Structure formats: structure tokens, C-alpha cells
């Protein structure tokens, strides 16, 4: 096997090891079990009517699919209308370029401190680290992101980044890392501490950064969904607002946002509506007394246009980042987000990351699934995640003619090729199968539990018992029903 591949953030990718560590951590397992059970129950409570769910999800899927088919035209229209509204549009093919755009915007205006609303795209970019290396403070203002930033961690969930942490862990972090903070586990007191620190930052910051939940092409509008108010603070208080967006987030019309928004809030946290839906169509304009003087949007590609090439895998781009897939995933529930060692964990991460960073490099993620289908069942835009996992398993190990997948075929295993060829030959020839099953049913007891492959099974299970004779053999002996 090739040397351990390295992930772009410098870590080595070894999912089996990282998931084993997570499985052995009882607190992590308890935390995630409790949190995921809660999120699943909340979601179920706001989709009580199966017929409404089916129709709403069909609508969401159709909106996303329709918009993806027109993606380049919509991006151009979005750019035109944003520009007309006074919002400057930048395009970045890579995360390095996107980081450079942000840095140049900040340096040109002498900004030394940036306050951030939540943006998963900024995690793709490793923006905080990049800016820090260039002397610009980038402070998270979403409470969950703020907590993990204090601890120097990555988010473990795309909606609730600190979901892996207990109150006492957060209390300890705050008392150690926030100036003059006392130790308290009272949620209201912890929240008040964070509020006070961040209020000052909103006040002082030279720039605010946000993500974009949906961008409307027809009206040139950036839509931001949030509960805390830090998004509005970041985008309205500082004189400069920079928004980061993956290029797949554009929709054609504002009224398409309404059902997508409802699907998003209900699927993500079981809320009928978020606290705030913030629609930005320009900087401070025409007599306004507040709002940013400048608004910039950075449109990031980072592998998305490549994903777009494959008609089936393109469905990956329909994602509205609700997190329902990971909330319902029995694997994610047991290992949490960090074990994936990727920016996007869980089922969506397992199809997105290999396509963005290399199907061979990340081949373990699509295999980290029993294909149970719980994710696809709750995906509000109908992404067929299990099928895409199978596609990516195939792409990792095969050079499929016409494939556009990054790193296709680079995790080929000769041993596995051989195993499946033998399997295919035996099962493709009924006489060979009959012979093999006769032998197996007579000799299976001789096979030691420690034999390769079987050993993985018998670590935690009794060795499977074969029958004395296969069903076919019995039927042949007693007379197969006439055909």
C-alpha cells in the first residue's frame, strides 16, 4: 500500500485510527448520542405530516436541481445584479486565491481585526490561520465557533460546531482564556461573558465576515440565516463586510428561498423559522444612517466546477448545509465530526471531501458507511447520498472511462481487484458456485476464526454457521419445483 497520504491541512488521513479513537471515548459517545437523539427528535417534531414533507422536499430538490442546471448563467446574473446594487464581486478558483482576496481587502483598508459570522467556506480556506499568519486577528462571533476557537479546535458539526463539548469543558475554557472570567457552568452566565467580549469586538472591528446561505441572482441579494444576531452584527456594524460563498449557493428567484429556508431551519435544528433572516442587497445606500460602506462577495470554486462535470455527482452541489444527514447517521453519531479529519464531516463530507481533495486520498470516507440510507431519507433536497458513496468507492479504485473525478483510480488495490474477480468468476458460473457451496457447507468448521477477513467478523461475533447443505442442494434432492 502507498505511503499514508496527507490531508491538505497537514494531517495524515487515517480514518480507521481516528474513528477507533473516537469509539473508545465514552464521553464523546455519550455527548454525540444525546445531541443527535435531540436533533433527530426536534426535526421529527416539525415534519409531522409525511405528505407535506414529501412535497416540500420534492420542491426543494426541484429548485436546487433546476438552479444547478443553469449555474453559470445564474452566477453571471448574480454578479451583474450584485454589482448594480453596489456589492463588489470577486472570483477565486482556489482557497489560496480566496485567502489572498480577503487579505488584500483588509490590508488596503488597514484592518487589523476582523469579526466573523459563521462560514464553513472560511473553514475550507483555513482563513483564520492564514490571516493570523499575516497579522490580522480573525475572531469568531458565533458562540459555538467562538468556543472552539478559544480551544484551537476545528468544528465537529457544520451547524453546531461545539456540539462535542460539555458545559464544564466550556466553563474551563472560558475561565482560562477570557480575561477576568470566573469559573461558572451556568449557561446564562457563560453566554453573557461571550456576549460582552464579542460586543466590544463588533464595536471595534474594521471588517466583518460572513457566509451566504443563499444568493439570489434576480435581485442581487445575499441571504443569511441565523439565531444569535452575530451575523447581523458582523455584516451591519463594521464599515467593511466581506461575504464568502461556494459557487453552488446561487438560486434564481427570491421566492425560491422561502421553501429552501423552511427546509433548512427545520432540517437543521427543528425550528420552524430562525431568529433572523437577513437579506442584504447593498451597502449603506441612499440616506441610510448605518450599515457597511462596502460589501464584497468572494465566490469560491475549490473543486465545485469539477464536481459539476459529472451529471450524477453534481447532486453533491445541491446541498444547503442543513446537517440533517450527519444528525441521522449512525456512524457520525458514534464518532463525531473530528474523526473524519475533514472540514465537512458525516455523509455530506464523505461525498464532498473526496471530490474536492481527491477520491484516492479520501477513499476511506465513502467506505465509512453501512449504506443504511438514513441520510438520504432526511436530505431536504433529495441528494442520493448512498448512491454517490458507491460511485466514489468505484472512482477511488477504478479508472472509469470519461470520469471527471479528482484522483480517480488512485486508490486501486490489486488485492481487492483479485478478490472480486475470483468472487465474480465463482458467482458468475452456477456450476462453480454449486461446487464452492458444497465445499463450504462441509468444511466451514475447519476455517479458523483468526483467518484474514473472517477475523474482523469474529472479533465481536460468533463465527457464522453454515448449514449442512445449501437450500439449493436440499431442493434438488427433494425435487426442484417444475419451472
Amino acid at each position, binding site marked *: 500500500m502507498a505511503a499514508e497520504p496527507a490531508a491538505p491541512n497537514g494531517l495524515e488521513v487515517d480514518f480507521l485510527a481516528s474513528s477507533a479513537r473516537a469509539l473508545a471515548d465514552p464521553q464523546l459517545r455519550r455527548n454525540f448520542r*444525546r445531541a443527535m437523539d435531540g436533533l433527530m427528535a426536534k426535526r421529527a417534531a416539525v415534519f409531522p405530516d409525511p405528505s407535506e414533507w414529501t412535497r416540500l422536499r420534492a*420542491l426543494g430538490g426541484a429548485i436546487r436541481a433546476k438552479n444547478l442546471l443553469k449555474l453559470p448563467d445564474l452566477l453571471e446574473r448574480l454578479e451583474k445584479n450584485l454589482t448594480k446594487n453596489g456589492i463588489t464581486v470577486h472570483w477565486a478558483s482556489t482557497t489560496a486565491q480566496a485567502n489572498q482576496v480577503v487579505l488584500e481587502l483588509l490590508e488596503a483598508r488597514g484592518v487589523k481585526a476582523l469579526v466573523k459570522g459563521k462560514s464553513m467556506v472560511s473553514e475550507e480556506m483555513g482563513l483564520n490561520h492564514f490571516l493570523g499568519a499575516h497579522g490580522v486577528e480573525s475572531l469568531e462571533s458565533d458562540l459555538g465557533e467562538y468556543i472552539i476557537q478559544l480551544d484551537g479546535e476545528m468544528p465537529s458539526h457544520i451547524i453546531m460546531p*461545539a456540539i462535542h463539548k460539555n458545559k464544564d469543558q466550556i466553563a474551563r475554557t472560558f475561565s482560562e482564556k477570557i480575561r477576568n472570567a470566573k469559573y461558572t457552568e451556568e449557561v446564562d452566565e457563560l453566554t453573557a461573558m461571550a*456576549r460582552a467580549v464579542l460586543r466590544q469586538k463588533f464595536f471595534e472591528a474594521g471588517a466583518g465576515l460572513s457566509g451566504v446561505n443563499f444568493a439570489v441572482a434576480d435581485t442581487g441579494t445575499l441571504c443569511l440565516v441565523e439565531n444569535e444576531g452575530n451575523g447581523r*452584527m458582523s455584516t451591519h456594524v463594521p464599515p467593511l463586510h466581506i461575504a464568502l460563498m461556494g459557487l453552488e449557493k446561487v438560486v434564481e428567484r427570491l421566492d425560491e428561498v422561502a421553501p429552501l429556508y423552511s427546509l433548512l431551519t427545520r432540517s437543521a435544528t427543528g425550528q420552524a423559522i430562525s431568529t433572523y433572516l437577513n437579506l442584504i442587497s447593498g451597502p449603506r445606500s441612499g440616506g441610510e444612517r448605518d450599515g457597511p460602506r462596502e460589501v464584497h462577495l468572494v465566490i469560491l470554486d475549490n473543486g465545485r466546477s469539477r464536481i459539476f462535470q459529472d451529471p450524477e455527482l453534481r447532486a453533491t452541489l445541491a446541498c444547503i448545509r442543513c446537517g440533517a444527514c450527519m444528525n441521522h447517521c449512525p456512524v457520525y453519531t458514534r464518532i463525531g465530526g473530528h474523526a473524519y479529519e475533514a472540514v465537512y464531516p458525516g455523509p455530506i463530507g464523505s461525498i464532498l471531501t473526496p471530490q474536492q481533495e481527491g477520491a484516492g486520498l479520501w477513499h476511506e470516507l465513502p467506505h465509512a458507511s453501512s449504506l443504511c440510507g438514513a441520510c438520504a431519507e432526511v436530505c431536504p433536497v433529495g441528494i442520493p447520498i448512498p448512491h454517490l458513496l458507491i460511485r466514489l468507492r468505484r472512482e477511488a479504485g477504478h479508472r472509469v472511462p470519461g470520469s471527471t473525478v479528482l484522483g480517480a483510480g488512485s486508490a486501486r488495490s490489486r488485492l481487492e481487484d483479485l478478490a472480486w474477480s475470483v468472487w465474480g468468476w465463482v458467482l458468475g458460473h452456477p456450476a462453480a458456485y454449486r461446487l464452492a457451496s458444497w465445499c463450504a457447507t462441509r468444511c466451514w468448521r475447519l476455517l479458523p476464526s483468526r483467518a484474514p477477513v473472517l477475523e474482523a467478523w469474529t472479533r465481536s461475533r460468533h463465527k457464522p454457521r453454515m448449514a449442512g447443505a445449501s437450500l439449493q442442494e436440499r431442493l434438488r434432492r427433494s425435487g426442484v419445483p417444475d419451472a
Partner: protein
Amino acid sequence: MPERDAILAGLRAVLPGGRPPVPDFAVVEEKRWDPGERAARLRRGMAAVKAEFIEAGPEDWPRAVAAFVLGEGLPSLLYGPDTTEGRALAAAWPALGPRLVPYDRPVETFKQELFEGIAAGFTTTLGGIAETGGLLLAPGPFEPRLLSLVPPVHIALLRADRIFDTLLQAFRELGWNKVLPANALVISGPSKTADIEQTLAYGVHGPRRLIVVLVS
């Protein structure tokens, strides 16, 4: 711009085939309630997320707002003076008691006071949403964006006959499908988070309290 052209060219390298699906909005458009029901639904939805309600008539709401501010011991109320409602509020404001502060100049001139010295902010709204609860606002020159965000208490005026069935209907009837103000907003309650052990906490960064003055 080379990046832009490269990205668009990359997206155009394949021409997606097939007929685009036609989204069917019926599941949302069907959601209708009687005018009488809409206010009740909105109240239920918003009360569930800790919004508070005061009922008032079309003539006495300014007095109701003043009484609330006084009764809660709030020392100041920020408002937009150049609206009809702002003028009505100012006209009914008691001479003694809480300060009525006009937001009539650029934020840069009084940012410190806004952040530290203002107890509550008053705005009008364009309407509400019956399906889920929620208020529609269009901040602008007359009612700036931070008015409903920075002060720890937000008092919002909602006319009961301006409640839409759904957000979709609101978007369409307000004409936002075609043109939007630089900032438009839906607010459903006080600011909140569940990031600490999924326990709800209010007043994180936005207002801690949202008071809806329901006028009918």
C-alpha cells in the same frame, strides 16, 4: 478577470442535458388561514420562542409603548423620528421619565452611546408571517438597521391586518421578488443560541427581548 472566466468556462464545459425540473410551489401556496386566525397563529409561533406581546388599538399604541418602557424601568428608547409612527410616538411621549432618543444621524457620530447607553429600540414593521410567526422589516434611512439589533430590547409595531399567510406570500406581495431594499429582514423572536449543551440561552448578540405591539 482570469478566475471568473476560468470558473465559468469550467462550468460551461459540460452542457447539462435533460429538461429542467419544474418546481411545484403548491405545498406552500396552499397554506392559507382566515384573517382572524393569522394573528393567533403568529402569536403562538412567536411566543414559543419567547417573543412578548402587547395589544393596543390604532390610536393608543404610542401610550402603550410609553407605559411599557416606563413600567419596565428602561431609561431610554431609540426610534426613527421621520416616520408617521415615529411622530405619533414622539407626540404621545411623556415629558418626564425615559428619554426618547431619535436615530437621526449617522451611526459614527454616536456609536458609543448606541452600544452602551440605549436600553431599547422601537421600529415599525411591514407585516408578519402567520405560518411560523415572524416580523418583516425593511430598515432604511428612516429606521436604521442597528435600531432593531443593538439595543437589548426591541419593541416592534405590528398591524394585525398586515399578517401574511407565509413567507412566500410576503415575498410576492411586498414585491421583494423584483426589488429589495439594501437590507430586508425577518425577525421571529429574541436572539438565542443552543450551542452550550443544546441548552437555550437568550440575548446572545441581538436583543434579549422582543416586544411585539400588536395593533388591531
